[in-house]
């Protein structure tokens, strides 16, 4: 098998051009899927027989919560690649993903609170799932703060990579907290092995919304990585050439 395309991805100018081409399409597709998925969730999906209309919060809560975990896992993998192979793009991926992950986690926590109040009678309980998700937010904020604490971009990225690797232990804790401990939060009903336990009319808008939010993460990551690359490679000829064409 020819791996040249994969090795070329490690080159900052090649990656920059590729991201320039793909990010607008990914973003457009993401927005279309989010609008259709969330719109269908709001106006088409039937009411839940127990929760009534309140269940519609699922269309923003579940995708953002699931992706908040995926982003941290991506950061940990990128962190390992950065530390082992000292690949510049992996270092950039770790620091570029952190603010996106933090934004998804804030929305997962806020929508969870807004769902909790009418269903549990409280915005917040110190439950294992909620607390571990809050720890996840602190980990994202820690990576952002650590990145801003260094003047040397390379040293900052390596420190962030270590924190991403150490903090990844929290990801399975968030995911399985509802199985390991007694929790007010329900166990997995969609993102689990076997058949999802919700009806098709409720499921397809959720899957569209999930795909849309994943693509949004992909597009935002490409854009943020491009910005980091522009700054880190600002003295390179390809950045100067790019600036002249703008």
């Amino acid at each position, binding site marked *: 098998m020819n791996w040249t395309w994969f090795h070329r991805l490690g080159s900052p100018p090649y990656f920059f051009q590729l991201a320039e081409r793909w990010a607008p399409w990914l*973003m457009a597709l993401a*927005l279309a899927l*989010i609008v259709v998925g*969330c719109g269908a969730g*709001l106006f088409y999906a039937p*009411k839940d027989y127990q929760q*009534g*209309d*309140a269940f*519609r*919060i699922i*269309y*923003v*809560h579940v995708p*953002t919560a699931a992706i908040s975990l995926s982003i941290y896992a991506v950061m940990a993998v990128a962190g390992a690649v950065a530390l082992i192979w000292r690949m510049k793009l992996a270092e950039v991926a770790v620091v570029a993903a952190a*603010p*996106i992950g933090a*934004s*998804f986690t*804030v*929305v997962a926590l*806020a*929508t969870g609170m*807004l*769902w909790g*109040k*009418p269903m549990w009678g409280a915005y917040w309980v110190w439950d294992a799932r909620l607390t571990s998700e809050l720890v996840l937010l602190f980990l994202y904020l820690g990576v952002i703060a650590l990145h801003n604490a260094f003047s040397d971009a390379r040293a900052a990225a390596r420190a962030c990579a270590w924190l991403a690797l150490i903090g990844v232990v929290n990801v399975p804790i968030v995911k399985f907290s509802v199985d390991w401990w007694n929790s007010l939060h329900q166990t997995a009903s969609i993102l689990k092995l076997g058949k999802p336990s919700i009806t098709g009319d409720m499921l397809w808008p959720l899957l569209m919304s999930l795909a849309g939010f994943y693509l*949004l*993460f992909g597009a*935002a990551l490409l*854009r*943020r990585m*491009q*910005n980091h690359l*522009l*700054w880190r490679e*600002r*003295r390179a000829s390809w*950045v*100067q050439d790019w*600036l002249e064409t*703008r």
Partner: protein
Amino acid sequence: MDPRYAFFIWMSFGIAAAMVLWNVLSPRIERNQLKRRLSEAAEDPAESEA
């Protein structure tokens, strides 16, 4: 939509919409600032060293 839940539902979708907008716009704004900064640095190399 059940009025008992309307506030919670619309607030949730509103917060999510704000997050989507932030993820779309903030890299664009950052890039424009970066472009301006790099162009200024290219005109005045002493500034780029700082």
